[in-house]
């Protein structure tokens, strides 16, 4: 068995949730990484959609920003950001949204706005971006986030993105017709909301993770599902494809002006070259 890191385990576990016929709104960073790993391993037909307007992007390297040229160049089509949020997302055409988080609570609500008071924050985080309405309009939401006491908190400093609210029927009562978070992938476990209470409950532990380690990384008393499985370890192919993806990405992002201009550009005589 190959060695792997806990973050690799997280990405691999998340990638396995996606199927070849899925249509998924991919947040940049770890969500996009898991989505593209799925595409490269077992879901070659997956449709990945980015908030920059790129539809069915098939990037060869991971985008650094959600608006990298690689996304548009490999996409079926690119629409305006307004159209993406209005017709594609709000119109209810995207079954899965894949998000990251800075802070998350036990009901899958997310904070990416501030640590501390909104008006006088200790740490000003980036803000909501696409997440609030991705979580509202996609049929269901997958979340990928590393576990830590600072991230998995009893109470959010700020509710940026609504998950299951205060649990139970809170989400429906707040006016959502969509399912919200249905699964959370971390570097230690896989969580799913309890069908009734909607509290996130551990359904699978990654190999070698103890319940004690779990409790030390989460700011509330963890619930476990009746049956807790062990997450299958990454396969050699999963690890190889993931590492190759990282390696291509690092090579591409280390230089300057590395955006290779491809066939879709209307003036192929205009090329970037590496000046770094």
């Amino acid at each position, binding site marked *: 068995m190959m060695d792997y890191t806990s973050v690799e385990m997280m990405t691999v576990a998340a990638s396995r949730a996606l199927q070849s016929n899925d249509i998924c709104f991919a947040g*940049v*960073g770890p969500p996009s990484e898991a989505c593209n790993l799925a595409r490269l391993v077992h879901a070659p037909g997956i449709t990945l959609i980015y*908030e*920059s*307007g*790129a539809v069915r992007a098939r990037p060869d390297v991971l*985008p*650094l*920003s*959600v*608006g990298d*040229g690689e*996304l*548009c*160049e490999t996409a079926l089509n*690119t629409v*305006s*950001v*307004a159209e993406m*949020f*209005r017709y594609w*997302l*709000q119109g209810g055409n995207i079954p899965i949204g894949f998000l990251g988080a800075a802070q998350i609570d036990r009901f899958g609500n997310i904070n990416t*706005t501030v640590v501390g008071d*909104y*008006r006088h*924050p200790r740490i*000003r*985080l*980036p*803000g*909501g*971006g*696409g*997440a*609030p*309405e991705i979580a*509202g*309009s996609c049929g269901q939401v997958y979340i990928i986030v590393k576990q830590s006491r600072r991230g998995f908190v009893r109470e959010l400093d*700020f*509710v*940026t*993105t*609504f998950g299951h609210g205060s649990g139970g029927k809170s989400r429906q009562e707040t*006016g*959502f017709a969509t399912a919200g978070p249905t699964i959370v992938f971390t570097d230690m476990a896989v969580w799913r909301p309890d069908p009734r209470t909607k509290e996130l409950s551990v359904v699978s532990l990654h190999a070698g993770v103890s319940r004690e380690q779990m409790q030390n990384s989460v700011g509330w008393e963890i619930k476990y599902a009746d049956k807790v499985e062990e997450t299958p370890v990454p396969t050699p192919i999963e690890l190889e494809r993931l590492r190759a993806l990282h390696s291509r990405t690092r090579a591409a*992002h*280390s*230089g*300057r*002006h*590395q*955006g290779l*201009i491809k066939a879709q*550009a*209307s*003036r192929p005589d*205009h*090329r*970037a070259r590496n000046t770094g």
Partner: protein
Amino acid sequence: MSISKFMPLPDAIAEYVFDGASVAFEGFSHLVPFAAAHETIRQRRQGLTLVRMTPDLIFDQMIGMGCADRVFFSYAGNPGVGLLRRMRDAVENAWPNPIEIREHSHAAFANAYVAGASGLSFMVFRGYRGVDLPKFNPDIRTVRCPFGGEELAAVRAINPDVAIIHAQRADHAGNVLVEGIVGMQKEAVFAAERTVVTVEEIVEDLNSHPNACVLPGWLLDAVCVVPGGAHPSYAQGYYGRDNAAYREWNSISADRKTFLAWMKTHVLDQTPDVFASRVLWREDAA
């Protein structure tokens, strides 16, 4: 429609970007109008309301140089790298001056631009349910559907005094082509009172698809040729994104002194012409 809209970038900024103006700099990762921002910094504009979905390095620089009183935004990060340290310093420590932030989600911000572009005072959309932002942004209210009675979010239109964008090219009549990731440029231009566009080049014929994103000359007030004007972001078909510069910004911006020294060397002591030397395009002899 007159030829006089072609002008050097310093003249355009001097004429259209006034102290206290609300100024949208649009471009969603792609075609970010850095050259125009640097010229605005050089001209020492103050009290601006800076409007942009993704503040990015461009607003980090402007905020750090004291141009801004207010910032309208929906995602304030250095994409894939980290936080915006100069913007944080302003929000958390009021350096170099306190700034007011007015914050939306992307969907809300996009709808606010759509309202502005459409000549409406607000736009209705399905969002902001159960979250905290409406407590802090007075531009978020609700409206009831006059048919079914459903309550929906409403956002106030954004109509900046000036929109500034960078685009691939213009023709001699001042019509401008934007292609690739087109973001919210069209909406920002339609929503704004005035528009300044920097372009990579002027061409005889835009030579694009009939349904491409073309902004007609009569909507634009100034068109300025600034090759490389989107660096370190990119111009699809011309040059790629300088990701290394985005990564380096994280340490440049970490410290006030380092930041100010960098800005002096790379912005204050420069002219728009320097952008051409930061990228290489039209490498006809491959």
